[in-house]
């Protein structure tokens, strides 16, 4: 369809896409590297992972549980950002609907 190409080549769409890419890729790549630190620490830093932080709670346990909260935190951040992208996409589409008189 022509409309798709017209939108795809527009400045607004380009900006929206770029903003998305600049948000999702750095977060995902950093998160992957961060996650891989868990098996690496477990493999090569056993004394640190086994050390007690308070009473019988080890550093390794806290480090592991932290991942759940980081994942939930990132999910929350994503939802907030995505709402903003939704809004921009809607504006962009309505702009093209008007132009076509549809």
């Amino acid at each position, binding site marked *: *369809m022509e*409309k*798709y*190409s017209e*939108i*795809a*080549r527009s400045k607004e*769409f380009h900006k*929206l*896409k770029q903003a*998305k*890419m600049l948000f*999702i890729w750095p*977060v*995902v790549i950093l*998160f*992957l590297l961060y*996650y*891989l630190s*868990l*098996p*690496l620490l*477990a*493999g*090569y830093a*056993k004394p640190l*992972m*086994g050390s007690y932080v*308070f*009473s*019988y*709670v*080890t550093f*390794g*346990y806290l480090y*592991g*549980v932290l*991942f*759940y909260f980081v*994942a*939930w935190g*990132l*999910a929350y951040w*994503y*939802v907030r950002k*995505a709402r903003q*992208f*939704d809004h921009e*996409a809607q504006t*962009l*589409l309505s702009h093209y609907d008007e132009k076509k008189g549809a």
Partner: protein
Amino acid sequence: MGVDLFGVILFVAIVGLTMYVTYWASKRNKSTSDFYTASRSLTGWQNGMAIAGDYLSAASFLGIAGLVALNGYDGFMYAVGWLMGYIVVLFIVAEPLRNSGKYTLADVLAYRLKPIPVRMIAAVVTLVITLVYMVAQMVGAGAIIQLLVGIPYELSVLIIGALMIIYVLFGGMLATSWVQIIKAVLLMFATITMLLFLGFLFGFNPSKLFEMVAVENGPQFLQPGLLYKNPLDLLSLGIALILGTAGLPHILIRFYTVPSAQEARKSVIWAMGIIGVFYIMIAFIGFGSSVLVGPEVIRAADQGGNMAAPLLAQYLGGGVGTLGGEMFMAVIAAVSFATIVAVVAGLVITASGAFAHDIYTNVIKRGKAEEKKQFRVARYTALVVGAASILIGILAKGQNVAYLVALAFAIAASANLPVIIFSLYWKRFNTTGAVVGMLVGLVSAVTLVVLGPSVMQENAIFPLANPGIISVPLGFFASFLFTLLGKPEANEEKYEELMVRANTGLGTEL
């Protein structure tokens, strides 16, 4: 006597409820779109719970509790990876997939690439992943039901297989989704109840539980190293888990059951909440079982540790031979049963889509099959896939299949994820890259497992149990290299259309 009756009532109640749901859904299962996607009628929270129900298999519930109970910290660490893959699902895959596909994963890949070869290979990869996952579920299920309920292995496999066929054949995706939702509720309810009992014993103080773990089983239980001797093995598994989730076909097709990208997003959020809470809790169940039941008793009941959670329930209910203990154990057995049927039903519908929609409708019939015919073929396929699964489950009796779930993740990460990412985000990507990339990912993951310690034991040529560390980069590299070597697609309009659909939701399947 009383306890047996209680167990039977629970079992009948779960089967009755799911049958009722299937009956209700069957009246709304009239077209191909109903069958594959429940007419995209699910809300975000419903789909989120169904994703959790699809994802949390018996291997998670019974298997990870056992891993923690027998290996302490390493089991806990293993559990962490299972939620983390959802970040990749949420950020990169869920919304564009929902916006650009129709029924299967191949829909997205075929959007701007040559549909016939891409669909064919994508369907084969989906069928292999589903089969591998299915065998793991069926063999595990047969053994677990035999252990928990005392009915013979073959009969357990037959009952589970018959139920999943009925759900899928008559109720399609709607019934499958609700079976998964019911299962997610039951599983969470059972786990929370066990955790509450455990909490009263330890004053809701994790440190006290860990202290008992260290006293009873030694401080090494709180440290890494009991299960994974080779750090690279763990790293390899981690790569497969975190990148594999976003390539699992039975999880990805769930995003077609919601009406929009916004609902798809909500469903990931719901799923992440449930799945994360579940894995945090199941680690406590495992640690609790290692203290209260003890590794020797757990191992004596089942070498793999699958009885850690049921035996803990028995202890918390009052102990062996008490009414409370046996009843609590019966509840766990019933929940495990619900867990298994929900997962296998999701696998059957996934395999049907890959064969009926991708291979039959779009490759053999070149997209020109009548709607009625498509619907019929989809259901026949479900019947054949279900029957084949029962047969394979019975033939594979007694095989050690625990490694198969990890293999399914490794294939998903090596063969599916690279081409999903490239086709959604890389303009230059082409058919050659997709076909060769999927083949290389699939073949390398399977070959490395066959050459590895899971299959060849001490004669292993490849030292790691999980192939991810080699096969995932290979899959990405092959897709990349063969894209550059292959011919460009020369259909820029299609790519522009895909981009606009993926990013704005314009023109998505309703």
